[in-house]
């Protein structure tokens, strides 16, 4: 059986948990990460030298980096609806996955650490304000894209890109800060909430 190492509250672990729900894949989970079992032990670092979660164990194959784990599982289950096999279709999904991991994630980190985690290292009011503005600007790009597709981030149907953007969207709504009204994002949030996996691991009360 698949094994997932990582705590259920981590956004990167939640990608994998939600995807397993979509795929109907059974798995065992062990809670690792700050507040749970330590990741900076020799045993854990032999699996992932970065000492980060999630880690996937599929028999003797060990994989880390959440987006890559998602790609791998979708491919393993031959779910080309979630990640197309043809280069163009696949690229349209992967560009949003990469964008979430690089641009969108970087835009919210400071504000989220300050406003939700209340981290003392993230207490500069100017940086918080800039963070909120940057985050809202990136979500406006999601709004524009969703207005074009009318449904999901990469087009008319649900893909892996919606797993990563959907989790970020939930964080955006759960963070106490000023937000512009983004009607297409609001409709998207409701659309995703029809999915059991999202209610379980995404929109589940945890920011």
């Amino acid at each position, binding site marked *: 059986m698949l094994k997932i190492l990582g705590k259920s509250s981590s956004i990167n672990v939640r990608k994998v948990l939600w995807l397993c729900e979509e795929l109907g894949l059974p798995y065992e989970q062990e809670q690792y990460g700050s507040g749970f079992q330590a990741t900076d032990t020799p045993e854990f670092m032999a699996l992932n*030298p*970065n000492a980060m979660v999630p880690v996937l164990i599929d028999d003797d*194959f060990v*994989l*880390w*980096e*959440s*987006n*890559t*784990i998602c*790609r*791998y599982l979708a*491919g*393993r289950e031959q779910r080309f609806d979630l990640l197309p096999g043809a*280069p*163009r279709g*696949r*690229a349209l999904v*992967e*560009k949003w*996955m*990469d*964008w979430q*991991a*690089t*641009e969108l*994630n*970087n835009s919210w980190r400071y504000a989220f650490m300050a406003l939700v985690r209340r981290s003392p290292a993230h207490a500069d009011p100017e940086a918080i304000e800039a963070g909120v503005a940057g985050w809202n600007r990136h979500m406006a*790009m999601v709004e*524009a*894209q969703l207005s074009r597709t009318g449904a999901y981030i990469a087009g008319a149907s649900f893909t892996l890109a919606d797993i990563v953007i959907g989790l970020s969207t939930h964080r955006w709504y759960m963070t106490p800060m000023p937000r512009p009204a983004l009607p297409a994002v609001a409709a998207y949030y409701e659309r995703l909430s029809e999915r059991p996996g999202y209610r379980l691991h995404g929109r589940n009360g945890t920011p």
Partner: protein
Amino acid sequence: MLKIWGRLNSLNVKKVVWCAAELGLPFERIDAGGPFGGLDTPEFLARNPNGTIPLIDDDGFTLWESNAIVRYLAAKYGHGSLYPDDLQQRADADRWMDWQATVFNPALVPAIYNLLRVPPEQRSQDAIDTARVKVDRLASLLEQHLTGRTWLTGKCFTMADIVLGCSVHLWLNLPLERTSRPELERWYAALRARPASTEALQLPLS
């Protein structure tokens, strides 16, 4: 013909230029970004709402996000070589690309910015020092990983070597103190020896 927008001293543009050369694809590169500007025009933003480089047009297909572009070109023109066929081998390459984008690059960027992009009097020595310590630790992880492996994923050169190779090219040539890493340097020398890397891995850095 494949069109690539972006100035060649951008790390993310280097990935795409090298990948295209590695695949033997003829391409036209259009300077954009930095001193060339051109990223905030309505035409550019219609193609890439982020206003960033690289951006490509492959026979009418527009794509942005450097790693997505590399994956796309490799899958379309290098299936079974740059883009491994086997799912686990492909995941292995994908993982190092994600690691470059989410771990290595964010650690390195403040050093690039402060040492290459701003005038000396505006440099933040703090930011440079923090980056140096962080990246040196990541280089040690790579040093261990490359021990016993010719390329990142083992015996075969893949798209992952291109992507991480571009970051390591900057790291190893910035005017910074570094711990000696023989395996990393051996791998980097092998990357430089590939004719397709010449344009992307130019020196001196700018």
